């Protein structure tokens, strides 16, 4: 039995068998794959699988998460473009970005087109125009410090800033914008607040 066990172990040591099963080899752990080093949280959001819907439930709209990392742009400047796009339909967003002169506009347009392509191909979206932007966020990327030379031998330390851009597309028309808060609403809320006060130390 010992010899059979050893023979079994030796037969297991054949690397071709392990590679075929797709598991990692602890001995020869050379990462020869071309996938990204570490998937961020936003990329993993595309992987969630919901249980099948019951017959009576309303149809859950498709959600597509896409992002681009390490864009050579400042995240404060990218924030303005992300804020412009929030809540628009994808066609309107693409139109606005096409005629915007900022550097980040071109990048965001590419990201939106990629996301639209992914939606149609992988996420079972029927019409590519039937998408709206539920969330559009700009985040800070890795900064690098460099020396900037001034006159008279002075120097300054500048930071080369990068940013990430995240977008979430949801199927369906864009939600109607919230009506602005009028004075009547504020007055109503105030009266409601007054009415909901409780009297302390009384009957």
């Amino acid at each position: 039995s010992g010899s059979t066990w050893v023979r079994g172990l030796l037969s297991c040591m054949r690397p071709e068998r392990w590679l075929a099963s797709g598991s990692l080899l602890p001995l020869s752990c050379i990462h020869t794959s071309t996938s990204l080093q570490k998937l961020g949280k936003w990329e993993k959001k595309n992987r969630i699988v919901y249980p099948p819907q019951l017959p009576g439930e309303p149809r859950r709209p498709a959600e597509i998460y896409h992002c681009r990392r390490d864009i050579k742009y400042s995240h404060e400047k990218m924030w303005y473009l992300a804020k412009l796009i929030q809540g628009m339909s994808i066609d309107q967003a693409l139109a606005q970005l096409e005629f915007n002169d900022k550097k980040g506009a071109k990048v965001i347009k590419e990201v939106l087109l990629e996301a639209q392509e992914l939606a149609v191909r992988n996420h079972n979206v029927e019409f590519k125009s039937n998408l709206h932007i539920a969330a559009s966020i700009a985040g800070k990327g890795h900064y690098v410090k460099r020396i900037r030379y001034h006159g008279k031998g002075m120097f300054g330390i500048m930071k080369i800033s990068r940013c990430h851009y995240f977008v979430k597309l949801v199927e369906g028309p864009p939600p109607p914008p919230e009506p602005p808060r009028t004075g009547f609403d504020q007055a109503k809320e105030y009266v409601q607040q007054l009415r909901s006060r409780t009297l302390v130390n009384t009957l």
Partner: protein
Amino acid sequence: MAVLVLVFSPLRGLLQRCWGRLERGLLPGFSESQSPPWVPALAVQAPAFLPESGRDIRESNESPSLLDSILWMAAPKKRRTIEVNRCRRRNPNKLIKVKTNIDVCPECGNLKQKHVLCGYCYAKVKAETRLIRMEIGKKEGRPFNTPTVETVILYDGEKPTKKDEGKRIIERARKRPSWFVQN
């Protein structure tokens, strides 16, 4: 964002030297024999205009020295908090405005601004013009060889008409584009 290190070092050195001189009372205007004006040696009722005070008035009438102008420079008193910064950066007048002058080009279907030519159509015309100019260049041979007659561009299968008698003819080896109308 750059942060200047030791930017005021030449001025700071000057400041330190001036203060040193003040401490030691060696600045011009206060010689050893005379006490500085902020310490009255003797309070005497005297006429307003004194020969020594005349020199002081003349000095005060001069433009403020470099020392004074440094001390009165504007500088922030407190650090601007992120809340205050956000109020300024996210003010609606700083947000990008939504453009309402975007339309669809009736020729190609791409987007265009109302007061601007369609980018796609313009690029298309530009490419064809470049090829026509290359043909013209080949016909002329060298620079500054333009004939003093009109030019007519003919595409595949087109013959020059009676109107194009004395004109220079440029041939293009392709079908006439739909947007280039023949006269």
